[in-house]
């Protein structure tokens, strides 16, 4: 019964991950991230994801600010922000977010304000969703590590 909790949690985690992959929220790049994590950098994934969230919040705020301007929106600048957002999202494997960025980018290229607004909304939704899911994932992982660690203090995970 001791090992049960950890295994259950592990299963939860995998299930969630599989679900996210299936939904297209995450893609193979996320796996690459996980592979980059090792003993030398045990917190790599969470670290990178944290950086990503941190930067993305800023970008999203900027985007919203730019789009909400009374006068002519600076589409070029939006495009620049979107480039960065796209790059970082694709780097961590956030597929859906990236796709929306692409569409958003297209809208800015055409200076299509309505399209941009819609895209921004979608982007924020997707981003929130992703964030929630990744939170969840990390929480499960923490719990799992806790549970496993308590029982097997010498175990090298």
């Amino acid at each position: 019964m001791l090992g049960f909790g950890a295994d259950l949690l592990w299963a939860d985690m995998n299930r969630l991950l599989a679900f996210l992959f299936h939904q297209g929220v995450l893609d193979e790049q996320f796996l690459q991230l996980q592979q980059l994590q090792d003993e030398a950098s045990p917190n790599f994934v969470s670290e990178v994801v944290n950086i990503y969230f941190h930067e993305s919040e800023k970008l999203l705020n900027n985007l919203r600010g730019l789009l909400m301007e009374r006068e002519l929106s600076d589409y070029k600048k939006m495009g620049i922000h979107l480039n960065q957002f796209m790059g970082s999202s694709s780097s961590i494997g956030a597929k859906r977010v990236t796709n929306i960025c692409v569409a958003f980018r297209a809208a800015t290229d055409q200076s299509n304000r309505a399209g941009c607004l819609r895209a921004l909304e979608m982007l924020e939704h997707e981003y929130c969703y992703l964030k929630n899911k990744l939170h969840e994932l990390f929480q499960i992982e923490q719990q799992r590590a806790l549970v496993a660690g308590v029982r097997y203090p010498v175990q090298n995970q």
Partner: protein
Amino acid sequence: MGDKELKPCKPKLIKRIRLNGGHEGLNENFSRACRSRGEGNLEERRSFHNGRRGGSLRKIVVTTRVSILLLCSLSAFVLRFSASELSPDDVVALVAPMAQSRSAGDACKGGTAEFPAGLRVLVVDDDATTLRIIEQMSIRCRYRVTTCTEATVALNLLRERKGCFDVVLSDVHMPDMDGYKLLEHVGLEMDLPVIMMSGDSTTSAVMKGIRHGACDYLIKPVREEELRNIWQHVVRKIWNENKEHDNSGSLEDSDWNKRGNDDTEYTSSVADAAEVVKAPKKRSSLKEEDIELESDDPATSKKPRVVWSVELHQQFVSAVNQLGLDKAVPKRILELMNVPGLTRENVASHLQGWLMRLPVVNEKFRLYLKRLSGVAQQQNGMLNAVPGTIESKLSATGRYDIQALAAAGHVPPETLAALHAELLGRPATSIMSTADQATLLQASIGLKHSHAEHAVAYGQPFVKCPSNIGKDFPPSFLTANDVSSGYGAWPSSNNTMGSVRPNNSDERVGTQYNNMLMDILDHQQRQQPQQKQQQHQQLKQQQQPLVHDQSCSINVQPSCLVIPSQSCDTLQAVNGSASVNQNCSFGMNAIIDYSLLSQKSNNSVSASQFSGGDTKTQAVLYAHTTPSTCSMSSINGSIPQLQNSTLTFGGARPLFSPLPMSDRQDPYGLKSGDSLDQVCLRNIGFIGKGTCIPNRFVQNEIESSVSDFSQMKVNVDSTGNTLKEEPNFINMQKVSRRPIFGRYQSCDHSSVFTE
């Protein structure tokens, strides 16, 4: 001191050196090693040692096993040993770059597993996420990576630490400076291979990258496998340049020495050059730029160097142009250049070297050599018969030329014209003149400067780029390209085009030339609707001779620009390390170095060459032991700082403490005061910023909006024609269900338990 007696060693092997603290021993041993190795350039080594004062150089055992590569011109810190000569308590010095890179080629050729390790990479990207990921990937590849969020900072870093980096990875879109601008700067000033990265995978973007001289163009998200391959650009560059330099300063090539003493060797006569080229069957090229600027006696046993800087070369080129092809004799060039201290021999050898690099003239030249040597011109025999670097130099760029020409034996002007006309729809008349020239060249073997004439006919467009792009450029450029394109289209068995692309990295200095060229090509291509713009990967196809020309025309850039600077770099690197150690002045917090050479052994510390620094974020050692054993031999008095701040990185057992994290934050340009807090928080585990919406609702919402999204996407698609291609994602089907979190630890308490 107790250093061992060094056995006399064979060339290209370095003896073990025992270092037991005190740099006198280091110096002595090292010099001895160098001498026994037969290296001539003790100067560089000594100056390196002078810079390594201060620290007690501990016993450093990199490995007791065999085959650590010496990457001389890469300025890496590995040495090559033979297994039998190592013993467990041997100590290996991590040495500075040597100017001679003879063995680099051999060493690199070995391709052992260790080689790409230690590659010094500079990554520039404004996106913190990508930067961190690439950093981690580089660490996994065992590169020594430095990260930067700003291009200006990166440039300064490169300028300050010349010769300290092997390759630069740069994002295309950056706020402070365009990635292409950075690319140009790096190409011009430092001549490092630059690899672009971008999420934009459109052909035009990639093309632009090539045009600006990028060695490669990676599409984000960058995968680790791609990063593992970037060393090829470095090696290629070095090889191609080594072949130019190989003869100079080499004591091993005594033949060359003797030859070098002879004044007549430095004439620009084809006959002499042929003789020089033919005789030694080594992979060294013609001697060039071997003469000291100050010395006016060329017939000396030493071979001092002429530094052909960009300005000097441009003077040279303009002089050649001014004189005209048929009159471009070294004497006249020299007069026109009017550079004090430059001798006719300097000019002559430079002229030779410059001409050798032009593919078509190389071809003619080789044909001429063939005739001289009386070897039958076989299609493949041609490649084998002419020794040395001409062949290998040409191997990628010129081979198609050679084969084409060899197949035909001789280029009939009519064929050329016809091909040209067919391909480009241009009037063939302009080609005729060039083809006639080609014929003339072949016929006029005895002419002293026939090759020069022909060469400059082809070389001229490139050379004249900056000044004459408006007028002279298009016609002459077209002819050159057209002829080349004619060559390219011929033999169906031509499988060397594929190798052309990698050579983009060879001559990168003429990026401005490249720009001009590409602009013209663009112009051309626009007029040729049937010619499509291709990605550089597609240059392999024969059906795109124009694009192919692009690549080969890039290669035609006078790479003599490259050579001296490279040697300068290596020289400077050695000197530079001294100076860096003494007055490293960067106040940038944005840089962190990782050195990754020794990952396994306990006591291994890699001494970082450029690790002078007064900010604690500089020059990190990748220490595997506790911080106290980390010694930075080349740091003056900043060891304690480093120990405190940086040594908790890396594979050490110590956890990621907040302090280095704050250092790490800096590269991302986050100057906010709360970054440290966030960082601490991050280490404790993933602390989110609060969930936006409960999962369930979000999910529903998202699902309902997904359809909108797809709807919207469709709308955009139908209306927008500027949708960029998506990054290349792998489909879900390929995702395998496997325990993914095997090694996944997201919080520190786990390591508390496990350790």
